[in-house]
């Protein structure tokens, strides 16, 4: 498709969407312009409140440090500056933590999706001794909140030599029984004729899983992956417990544990926060539809 076609395609889709939205408006709140204005005003107020903290942080991050410590004003009298960003990027381990977070969240996502999908496939499409018991155990473990295990798990990591390692941060996070069940529900719906046909052709179980089941489930896998990634990226408690070496801290842990050596610096604090917030916000803006869908389907436990 050429660029012009793409643009045109986008435009028609946008038009379509607008038309749908107009129809929706008519259906939900009716034709009254007053109700419409009221609803719009409510939306504007809510959105303003929701954007305020980030906006205020962003403004502060571009101020000179001395100005940031004065009573709040939106428009700095001494001008805008990138000083805080330069300081933060030059003097702190922020980028290392970001990298660690990326690696940790990436590994957690890949491993969780893989082992959950495999287990879900086994529960859904194969029969083996003890399957019932295992499924029952999996359900039971959904009720086990990982947070209460911090004490024994830290001890265990010490014994296993995994404190301050990526393995120690990642592995305890990949156990996600809920995801197994979300995926199992999806795999259950795959027509068994399809799989049996492949079996008759002599396909092994691994090939069945890899070439039929996974490709058919791409949408749910992406949804689960997005959900798991956001969770891992934002996870604080476990990485906080299991890392003591700042070089292995993830973003939230490093930001809150390691301080700069120059005293309280409001503009720099906000600059760090802005940099830390950026990656996921950008990803969200790019893939909004996908992410909204992923969170919604997975969040409800695949209902």
């Amino acid at each position: 498709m050429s660029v012009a076609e793409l643009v045109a395609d986008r435009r028609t889709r946008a038009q379509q969407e607008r038309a749908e939205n107009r129809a929706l408006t008519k259906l939900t709140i009716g034709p009254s312009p007053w109700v419409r204005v009221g609803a719009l005003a409510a939306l504007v107020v809510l959105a303003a409140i929701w954007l305020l903290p980030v906006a205020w942080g962003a403004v502060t991050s571009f101020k000179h440090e001395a100005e940031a410590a004065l009573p709040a004003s939106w428009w700095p009298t001494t001008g805008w500056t990138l000083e805080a960003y330069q300081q933060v990027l030059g003097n702190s381990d922020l980028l290392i933590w970001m990298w660690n977070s990326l690696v940790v969240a990436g590994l957690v996502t890949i491993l969780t999706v893989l082992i959950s999908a495999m287990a879900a496939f086994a529960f859904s499409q194969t029969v083996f001794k003890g399957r019932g018991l295992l499924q029952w155990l999996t359900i039971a473990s959904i009720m086990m909140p990982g947070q209460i295990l911090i004490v024994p798990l830290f001890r265990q990591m010490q014994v296993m030599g995994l404190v301050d390692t990526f393995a120690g941060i990642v592995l305890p996070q990949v156990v996600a029984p809920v995801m197994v069940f979300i995926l199992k529900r999806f795999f259950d719906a795959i027509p068994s004729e399809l799989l049996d046909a492949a079996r008759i052709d002599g396909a092994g179980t691994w090939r069945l899983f890899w070439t039929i089941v996974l490709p058919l489930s791409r949408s749910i896998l992406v949804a689960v992956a997005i959900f798991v990634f956001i969770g891992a990226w934002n996870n604080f408690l476990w990485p906080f417990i299991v890392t003591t070496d700042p070089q292995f801290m993830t973003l939230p842990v490093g930001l809150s544990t390691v301080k700069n050596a120059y005293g309280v610096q409001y503009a720099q604090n906000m600059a760090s926060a802005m940099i830390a917030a950026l990656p996921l916000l950008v990803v969200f803006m790019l893939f909004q539809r996908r992410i909204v869908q992923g969170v919604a389907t997975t969040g409800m436990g695949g209902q």
Partner: protein
Amino acid sequence: MAASRTRSLVGSSGGLSRRELLRAALVGAGGVALGGALAGCATPSAAGAGKTSVMVWDLFSGGDGALMQEMAGVVAAANPDIAVETTTLAWGPPYYTKLAMASSGGRPPEAAVMHMSRLAGYAPGGLLEPFDLDALAELGITEADFAPAVWQKAQFEGQLYALPLDTHPYIAFHNPDIVQQAGLAGPDGKLDLAAVAGADRFLEAGRAMAEVTGETGVSWGYQRDPAGCWRMFWGLYSQNGGGYELTPGRPAALDEEAATEVFEFLQAMVDGKVAAKNQDGNAASGRFMSNRTGLMFAGEWDLPMFQGANPDVGATQFPAIFDTPANYADSHAFVLPKQGTPDPARREATYRVLAGLLKEGLTWASAGHIPAYQPIVQEPAYQELTPQRDYAPAAEVAVFDPDAWFTGGGSDFQTRMADAMTDTLAGKAPARTAVTRMLSEMDRFLSQPNPA
């Protein structure tokens, strides 16, 4: 020299530590991404292959941390075979928790800074290693280089567990201009301690400074600052002649009358005129630095920050609010967290780094601290530092935290004590309430077994 440890799935390789590699790569990439705006900021440490890396943790998140980094830089330059890295962690309970967890995990930093008052909670539990006096002597560090009292505090069961770095009193900073306009200055233009001696005269002086600034006279941030509350209380309580008894298994005892008087004074001070109500440390410093108060109670470690805002900032020992001369202080020291797999080469390097840091005491003194290493104190250059010499007398009347396993800088005890004071300081409860609550909290600590 031993190669860097391999600590993880993605371990360090070829002598360059992971941090250095990543920082170089990432800052480089970030710099490019920001259009080269940061090109000058990438400062990968000059660590080459075969260096022994020594990591030192500290909790200097005030301006003093920057000076510790500077000292580490000097030491690294003098020891080209060692890569010295310092990391500043969040002050207080989080720092000590992380330190204990790291030691018990077997992979702690090679050395760490600790309040001497916390030694009782760490040394008995086997979280620290004692210093080898012979190895220290070889580097020119002996008992004779320290004040006897300080050296004594650094011992546990006959062994040296802490290498004293400084004494840091809780003092009064002042803005000379405001002090002068309020008529509180001596002939040298600095705060006249006699003008702020005695509770009534101090409050009077506070009101005079408030007249000058048009806002409040004194900065004291006690909200969200348990350590600040405790330092203030313990210093004033000692000035008021109060003693204590903290014996495990028995009820705590304070001079309740003396303690109540302290809170009555503090309540009178935090009246919204002399000092602002409900102020936290950051806001208090902010006001002082923007010339909206004339006097600020803080640790001397805030000196670099205050000097940054006003090069002429003055500092004196804590005013004599009550009759007994006393000034709250604590002491920083280096300790050796217990290593899971001790490495003699690394240990030797660590000793050299710590000895080097002690001898950079003059830089440390510019952070406001009074160096523990006496050869530095006797140097003429130190004797001439202002305002350091103005508050040097504080060390002579220093009072330290009470002795017990649970007390000390950044301890849970300080948090509990500060919590017990909150209502009283906020004016929601009478002065005596704070005393009663503190005693019952102390009783709770005394009834618990020492977990170390």
